[in-house]
């Protein structure tokens, strides 16, 4: 970044002469430093998976979830500053809660993503605030079917069949491209998601991580967002580990050669 230090990166909502908003770009850096989060749009739903880096052995296992529920039928996974993600989830919950109060029906996922992205975008416009340091993967099933979106710190939101953010997003994206999206079944997507998180995980940088997987599926959860049952999570993790170890063995063999 040649323009760093020219003074255009000190205040939010200020453009540099070449048309960039540095504070937003720095927020994206916060996203890139955090564990990988992915979302898969499958045949009748959405699957979320997160590589939650465990920073201390003293932390309670399963605490500080990075996948959350916004409404019955909508889930989110995010990479970046966890408190920023928490705040955005609170906003999403109040949006969908008030939608139910007004219209007596569940909010549509595209509308929710639109409203949340509008909220995120507003935090790029004022010098008194800083942009959100999270990329949020929002997904769910509504009456028009499954939807998956990513909201970036700039407030841009894109619809995806497979989405990835965080440290391992490049590896995760190239793995996602290999899947048969969006025809994959929810159950297969869970197994694929576990594999992708293990592939995207870099053993040399972070040793410990927790795998979180949740899903929203018409056939599997009746359209509700839930964490996958323990036996399925264990099986997916076992398969992912087995495959990951195989790859490591291959690497070792190559080293020997």
């Amino acid at each position, binding site marked *: 970044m040649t323009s760093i230090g020219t003074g255009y990166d000190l205040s939010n909502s200020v453009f540099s002469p070449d048309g960039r908003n540095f504070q937003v770009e720095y927020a994206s850096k916060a996203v890139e430093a955090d564990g990988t989060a992915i979302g898969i749009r499958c045949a009748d739903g959405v699957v979320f998976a997160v590589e939650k880096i465990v920073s201390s052995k003293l932390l309670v296992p399963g605490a500080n979830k990075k996948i*959350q*529920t916004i*409404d*019955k039928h909508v889930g989110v996974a995010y990479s970046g500053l966890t408190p920023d993600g928490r705040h955005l989830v609170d906003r999403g919950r109040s949006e969908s*809660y008030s939608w*139910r*109060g007004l219209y*007596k029906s569940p909010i549509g996922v595209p509308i929710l993503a639109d409203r949340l992205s509008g909220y995120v975008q507003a935090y790029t416009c004022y010098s008194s605030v800083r942009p959100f340091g999270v990329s949020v993967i929002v997904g769910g099933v509504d009456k028009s079917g499954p939807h998956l979106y990513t909201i970036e710190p700039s407030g841009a939101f894109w619809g995806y069949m497979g989405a990835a953010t965080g440290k391992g997003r490049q590896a995760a994206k190239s793995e996602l491209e290999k899947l048969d999206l969006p025809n994959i079944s929810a159950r297969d997507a869970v197994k694929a998601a576990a594999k992708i998180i293990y592939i995207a995980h870099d053993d040399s940088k972070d040793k410990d991580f927790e795998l979180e997987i949740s899903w929203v599926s018409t056939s599997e959860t009746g359209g509700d967002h*839930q*964490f996958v049952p323990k036996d399925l999570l264990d099986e997916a993790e076992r398969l992912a580990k087995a495959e990951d170890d195989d790859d490591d063995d291959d690497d070792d063999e190559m080293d020997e050669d």
Partner: protein
Amino acid sequence: MDHMPENWGRPRSDVYGSYQHAIHSAGPQSHTQVPSITGTSVIAMKFNNGVILAADNLGSYGSLARFTDQERLIKVGKETVVGFSGDASDMQYLESMLERLIIEDNYEQDGHNFRAPHIYEYLSRVMYNRRSKVDPLWNAILVAGKKDDGSPFLGYVDLLGITYSSPCIATGYGAYLAIPLLRKLVSEDEDAKNVTEEQARAAIDESMKVLFYRDARSLDKYTVATVTLDGNVKFDKDVRCQNMNWRFAEGIRGYGTQKQ
């Protein structure tokens, strides 16, 4: 000089206009002071493996059978069924209120969820709060499910905020017509242990038939919900009264215009 002492100290009519008497009768804002579309009895009883409930599918507009597809038993959370009699709009209000309650409860996916006693306690506070505002929700409600210790739960709350629990409960006309039939099987909590689901279902079906015979605001099409202690909730919809016999009607005297 105004010689009427009651006018002294008041704004003068010739200056401010005459007193608006509507102000005197203005009260607190209220909504459903009279029910409009109503549902009749809900009946329920405990048995050895849970609780069974039934409610017919009629929405009455006064004495007019206005809607014949009204569902009055709803599932709340994972293992609770709530049955409503009384005003349909207040039922729908409570329905959406309970749904949002459950959604908020599921924000924390911590493995805990609302059971019947919690929903019952919440509903009873809402009902009492509204009657205290002189703006009651015009319903009598049954809540059925499991207690925290895994035993069956059945509770009643109505528009006055009155609450009670019993192994057999029925609202409305059911309290007179169905309760005696249900109590033949279960009159004390202990009796429920000796009653199977099939026996309970037969008693419920029989009670719904008797209610259809005698309750002029009822329908022979109803829903039966069963909550079992393993946490399952089963809905049997569009059930019809079977083996009805209306011969007894010929002998009924004393209504209408018959002379003899």
